[in-house]
């Protein structure tokens, strides 16, 4: 090959096909998705918590996409039904994740609604899950002699509480837990369109 114009044009064409197939078509396909009735936008505290989730890179160990029963036993583990595009309507950026070093968190708000548990678990995961390899997040907390007004005291198992001191949650920790509690995609979604299911056309004949 001796022509740089051909090279450039060819390289751009293959690239253009890929953009059309993998970026533009999905864009068109999901652009009219509406939020399901059960889904509420995030509150400002939850949004701050979500930012904290992103800043600390929680997404690198936790997915937010339970998979279909036919694919993996996610539902049996209590992680919830398979998600649909509408479930992510308010998610920007998406936090689908690609690793399950820890469990899926899409419905953690249903599984574990307790603020106390979450705060204690963030402070020291091994206080609740002995073999956990999740990092502890002491910088989201303060160790004090006594709490001031309005501060949330973290109740820890005695073995993990600092002696003679108390642990209070910083606002970032409280917001993060509020975000985790908001992760609830357990509302029902419409059953799939029967026409789309393979085999139904034949059965109707």
């Amino acid at each position, binding site marked *: 090959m001796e022509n*740089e114009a051909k090279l450039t044009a060819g390289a751009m064409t293959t690239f253009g096909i890929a953009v059309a197939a*993998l970026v533009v078509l*999905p*864009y068109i*396909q999901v652009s009219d998705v509406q939020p399901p009735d059960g889904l509420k936008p995030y509150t400002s505290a939850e949004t701050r918590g979500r930012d904290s989730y*992103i800043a600390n890179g*929680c997404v690198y160990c936790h997915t937010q996409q339970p998979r279909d029963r036919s694919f993996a*036993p996610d539902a049996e583990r209590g992680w919830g039904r398979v*998600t649909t*595009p509408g479930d992510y309507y308010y998610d920007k950026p998406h936090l689908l994740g690609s690793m399950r070093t820890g469990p899926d968190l899409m419905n953690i708000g249903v599984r574990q609604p307790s603020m106390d548990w979450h705060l204690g678990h963030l402070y020291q995961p091994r206080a609740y899950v002995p073999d956990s390899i999740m990092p502890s997040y002491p910088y989201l907390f303060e160790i004090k002699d006594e709490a001031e007004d309005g501060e949330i005291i973290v109740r820890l198992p005695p073995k993990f509480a600092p002696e003679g001191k108390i642990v209070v949650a910083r606002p970032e920790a409280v917001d993060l837990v509020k975000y985790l509690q908001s992760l609830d995609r357990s509302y029902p979604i419409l059953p799939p369109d029967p026409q789309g299911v393979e085999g139904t056309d034949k059965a109707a004949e």
Partner: protein
Amino acid sequence: MDSALLSLLAAFLLSLIGLLAFIWSLRKGLLFENPRAASTIFAPGEIGKADDPALDGQAAQRLQEAISKSHGDEPQAEDPDEIKDRIAADRSTAFPVFMFIAFGCMWLVLGATAGLVSSLKLHWPDWMVSDAWMTFGRMRTVHLIAVLYGWITNVELGIIVWLLPRLLRTPLKGPLWVMLGGSFINVGIASSIGAIGAGWSDGMEYLEIPWQIGLFIQAGMICIIGSVFYTLLHRKVHELYVSAWYHIAALLWITLLFTVAKLPGVHFGVQQAMTNWWYGHNVLGLWFTPVALGAIYYFLPKTIGRRVRSYNLSLLGFWTLAFFYAQVGGHHLVGGPVPGWLVTLSIVQSMMMIIPVAAFSINMAGTMWGRMRLALYSPTLRFMMFGGFMYLLSSLQGSFESLRSVQQVAHFTHFTVAHAHLGAYGFVSMVLFGAIYFMMPRVLHWEWPYPKLISLHFWLASIGITIYFVLLSWGGWLQGLAMLDATREFMDSVRVTIPYLEWRSVGGGLMWLGHMVFVGHLLVMILRFGPNRTGEALFAPEKMKLEIMHGK
């Protein structure tokens, strides 16, 4: 019409078009061998001559003897005009290339350290947790940005800038623009590492760099592309050698990829996830891979003084890579909330990737056939062969990994991490090391002071990545099986990986040690410490040698 029928029809049409293209290429003579094109990297008379600047005098002689024995022909005297062009090309690029390599190695040290710390944190979860920037989620991302954008991207730019003027027999036009572009890119990398440490991230894998900082990287790429194209238009050669196609196309692709994926305010929800993974896979496929392949296509034949086996096979490899690889990536969302057709398309194209991989591997095996033991004599060749073989391995693994049945186990586990390291380290980084060992004596006009350290680096890196890959894949597979078994609690999938995560740190530690040896050696060379040898590596005429050595 239902979708099965549509896809059958599409497959039929595609194969019809393929057949027509095949007949057309036969008529055009594209399938006949073109040894003239494959020889463009050699000056007349240079074929059969060993070329490995990483070697000192005696070792270079041994390599030459081994080559003469296996090729059976003695090299002739080279054409002095061509060599003069090459020297002019090398001189025009020396400073920009030095900048890219120096930045690359700096980021390698930082990135490898952050990687090792992240690996240790996975089995020592309470180690280094007092400050936010140390936490796993940030340290891991600093590792990723530093090695992908800092190390690989800088060194690849260095290789492109060094190689193109040689291939085009033209001095680099606008080296100041290249330097400006390189500065923009490295400002961008430094700022994004700072931003991620401080908790400012766009939150998507491979796309963490905040888009505002990403503008620097785009501006830098545009400066470099401008200069590269201007050089291309002033070239003296008629044939564009295969490395040039890979490198020019890759430069265009990465700039467009980054632009499409980072468009602020466009992508949302699951569509963003698809774009994210399309980018995440293509930054490997359309940037790291083609530049590294282009480098192998140059350095490997050049070292042994023998043209690649089949030039047309490299052409086939290039176009099929361009077509198929660009549509891979959706398989990262197998079983996720995305349209099924998209995942299927990506799986099909992943399997099609076997074509370019086979084209490259057959070509290289043909070039090296009966000459494998030359790797004993030449460190550049050793790194290139290792990298080329890992390309075969990681791409085949990637193709099969995209299948739904394999994904079911491997997805969401450390298996994927092991695979990513096989590609980015075993293949790409090893090729980059080899290229640096070849280029730096030409860039700095100074020999590598301690050739034994090159071997030490090779063994540390190759044993390190082998331990890392084998044990982490194994652990990841067990993790996936534990997760699929509904009768076992989730924590089983964590417990089962611990010994393998520890082995991963051992492998990572060896790789880290290798980098320290490598960067230390480079530093010694830059500062001109160590033995002052006659300069077998130099091929500049005597007068120029003195002129450049005045720095000593």
